[in-house]
């Protein structure tokens, strides 16, 4: 009804190729941006910002990273957690070595190290595919975890073995460390995630993104159209790992405040992979949906008994939340194996043709 493109005629290829060709989509995005950057910082509680929105955005960014590699370039990876770790540890080292450089710059630079490591562990993808490749990325996961424990230089020879985030300021406002307010940290993360999402969308719809999808869908034909698998696959690994690395750096510096190697273990790799699968392979919106589903929903479910004033043990709510999430995952994967993003897409298609069941072309 409200969502239809009747009357919106494209008169140029530029208009037709726009990121959001339909006006309603643009309005929707505007609303989301206003909510993200104005409504939430002004009205939301510190708990909501610190425990829901910040982790949600960090994981959404990591999911975008993995989705670029798995959903767009078709290379399965189980090393997301480790790549996030590379970002976090290199950001920590950079902050130690260059204390005067703005921390936001360092976070963005630390992704580069993650990208380099990603390329290194992406090399097997030139020979092997699918599940076998996933196993070799496990090697990255375990090897890097080992590095984070054994190479004491990475955590400045701390006795605790943890990386502690130093206090850093921007225009005299604390943006990292204990005294930084959740709202400030949230705004920085939201800004970075918004920009990086736009960058990803641009790259994915252009020549480079197309080459990744060509490799994903039919590598033989892609090679025949002049795509070099070496460049396409390794650039996908680099780009994807960059996002994971930045997400990891954000996770430690803007959310946790300090982290040990457990923050980057295989469970986190799986967590991000589930976000991508539930959200939808090959969809940027899906990354946000998946992150919301896997991270935010359990928190909300756990909070419901409290809000209703029910006296249930914390452990019981935890179990109930796990059961509900598990059932929902199964439900959504049966309804739409291609994830929430596809479900959303189908819903929009239905609205466009409403009240008719399908459109005649």
């Amino acid at each position: 009804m409200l969502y239809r493109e009747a009357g919106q005629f494209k008169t140029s290829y530029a208009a037709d190729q726009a990121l959001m060709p339909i006006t309603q989509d643009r309005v929707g995005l505007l609303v989301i941006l206003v909510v993200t950057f104005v409504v939430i910082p002004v009205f939301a509680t510190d708990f909501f910002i610190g425990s829901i929105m910040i982790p949600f955005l960090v994981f959404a960014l990591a999911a975008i990273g993995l989705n670029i590699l798995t959903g767009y370039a078709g290379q399965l990876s189980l090393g997301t957690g480790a790549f996030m770790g590379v970002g976090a540890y290199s950001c920590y080292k950079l902050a130690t070595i260059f204390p005067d450089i703005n921390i936001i710059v360092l976070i963005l630079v630390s992704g580069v190290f993650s990208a380099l490591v990603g390329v290194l562990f992406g090399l097997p993808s030139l020979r092997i595919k699918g599940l076998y490749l996933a196993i070799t990325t496990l090697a990255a996961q375990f090897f890097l975890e080992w590095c984070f424990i054994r190479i004491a230089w990475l955590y400045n020879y701390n006795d605790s073995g943890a990386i502690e985030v130093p206090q850093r300021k921007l225009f005299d406002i604390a943006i990292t460390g204990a005294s930084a307010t959740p709202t400030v940290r949230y705004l920085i993360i939201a800004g970075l995630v918004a920009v990086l999402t736009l960058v990803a969308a641009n790259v994915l719809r252009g020549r480079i993104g197309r080459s990744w999808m060509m490799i994903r869908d039919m590598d033989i034909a892609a090679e025949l159209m002049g795509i070099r698998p070496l460049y396409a696959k390794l650039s996908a690994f680099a780009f994807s790992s960059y996002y994971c690395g930045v997400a990891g750096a954000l996770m430690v510096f803007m959310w946790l405040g300090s982290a040990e190697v457990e923050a980057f273990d295989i469970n986190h790799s799986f967590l991000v992979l589930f976000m991508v699968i539930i959200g939808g392979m090959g969809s940027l919106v899906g990354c946000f949906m998946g992150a919301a589903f896997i991270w935010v929903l359990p928190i909300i479910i756990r909070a419901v008994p409290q809000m209703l004033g029910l006296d249930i043990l914390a452990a019981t709510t935890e179990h109930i939340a796990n059961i509900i999430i598990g059932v929902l995952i199964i439900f959504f994967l049966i309804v739409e194996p291609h994830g929430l993003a596809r479900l959303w897409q189908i819903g929009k298609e239905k609205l466009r043709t409403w009240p008719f069941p399908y459109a005649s072309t």
Partner: protein
Amino acid sequence: MALQADVAESDGLPVAHAQTGQSSVQPGGAEQLLKVEHVSLSFGGVKAVTDISFDILKGEVRAIIGPNGAGKTSMLNVINGFYHPQEGVISFKGKPRRRMKPHQAAASGIARTFQNVALFKGMSTLDNIMSGRSLKMHRGFFWQVLHVGPARAEEIQHRRRVEEIIDFLEIAHIRKQPVGKLPYGLQKRVELGRAMAMEPELLLLDEPMAGMNLEEKEDMSRFIIDLNTEFGTTIALIEHDMGVVMDLADRVVVLDYGKKIADGTPGEVQASQAVIDAYLGVAH
């Protein structure tokens, strides 16, 4: 890349000539685009192709036929670099080469369609054909990130060319649809469009009519003829429909058990006893 387009255009006239004049080997006439000399290919002990030589002249439609397992597709795979023959030399545009990667073949001007449709199933028709322009797009990572200015201009410039192909193949109505959902005949057409988008000098078609009904075959034949006469593209096709082959091809090479048994105009090939024996069998 602009060079290729120029070559294709400037050759427009002689090409049309070669099409109308059925006689194939014009002495000193059309130049050789591709020359295959004494090529042998084997996988372990299995000989796929044995000592095959033939040439493809600029602007002609060359058919490769033969019974199942004769080595036709292996021959195409050798030409565009998927297989590396153990013996023999292949010269494209006068340049001999022994080993070549598929992407190098693509860059030198060879495009190809596949026997079983090899489209990018997750992408739309438009993106599939745009992917054929990959080699002609050069804007670097920085511009891709911004997606303004030169990168956008490049995208739109190639979109224009792609839309011409879409018009030519009459597939405007499925422009935005994912190709995985299209009927088979249309998928074959999109695949042809994708190969066309590369603006190749030599287009290899592996069974373009396979699995099509009569109407679809007629359409596809029309596209192939137009492609050859209007755009001057040299075409090598493998096909089992003899009616199509005899009507479209200027010259036909016949393979059987990896060996060449005949080469010539459709009339000559039809009259050859070896070809008749290969297709119909010999009484023992």
